[in-house]
């Protein structure tokens, strides 16, 4: 089982560049999430989606955008990259109930120079 797949695993960007982090899940999960993880700060929610065509902001959405055209895919777009966006990004998914666990991808490490 592939679970949650994130690409790329590593990326270096220059200030002002844009890029998309890809996330795909093969578990037919409705809920999908994007988190960023910074040392000592835990996980902060960027955006989430409760189903295809529906997205909403999390705690730290500024500088990011998402779309959810299919159940499987939930890409995260960074526009005009800034050094403050240097982080490790995790995509996660969950089934229908809120008693279920989140399934995480392996992360995408982004450095903005």
């Amino acid at each position, binding site marked *: 089982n592939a679970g949650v797949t994130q690409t790329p695993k590593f990326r270096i960007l220059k200030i002002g560049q844009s890029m998309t982090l890809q996330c795909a899940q093969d578990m037919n999960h409705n809920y999908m999430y994007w988190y960023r993880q910074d040392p000592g700060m*835990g996980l902060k929610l960027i955006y989430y989606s409760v189903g295809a065509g529906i997205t909403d902001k999390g705690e730290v959405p500024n500088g990011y955008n998402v779309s959810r055209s299919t159940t499987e895919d939930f890409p995260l777009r960074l526009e005009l990259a800034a050094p403050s966006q240097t982080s490790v990004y995790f995509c996660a998914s969950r089934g229908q109930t809120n008693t279920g666990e989140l399934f*995480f991808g392996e*992360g995408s490490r982004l450095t903005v120079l």
Partner: protein
Amino acid sequence: AQSVTQLDSQVPVFEEAPVELRCNYSSSVSVYLFWYVQYPNQGLQLLLKYLSGSTLVKGINGFEAEFNKSQTSFHLRKPSVHISDTAEYFCAVSSGGSYIPTFGRGTSLIVHP
């Protein structure tokens, strides 16, 4: 609103010693509680979860946690740790009808030989 506090950012311990990682939560409604583990350069994976029933929950790799409603705690324990348990541990809570879990800042467990 829901929140999670992990009281220790780092817990050093010697191999074969017992360990307890502390987690307190706040919520005005019923809660579902989770512990996740993150090994170096990997995503998070579920260790165990409490949904209802017995307050003592057993998880993978010999870990267990006890739900204490009066103290609003969900501490994680292992009677004898191994070097391979060195990782970051996250406590998370989902409450009521929320489909957005809240994560603690994480506790780094460092097992010394």
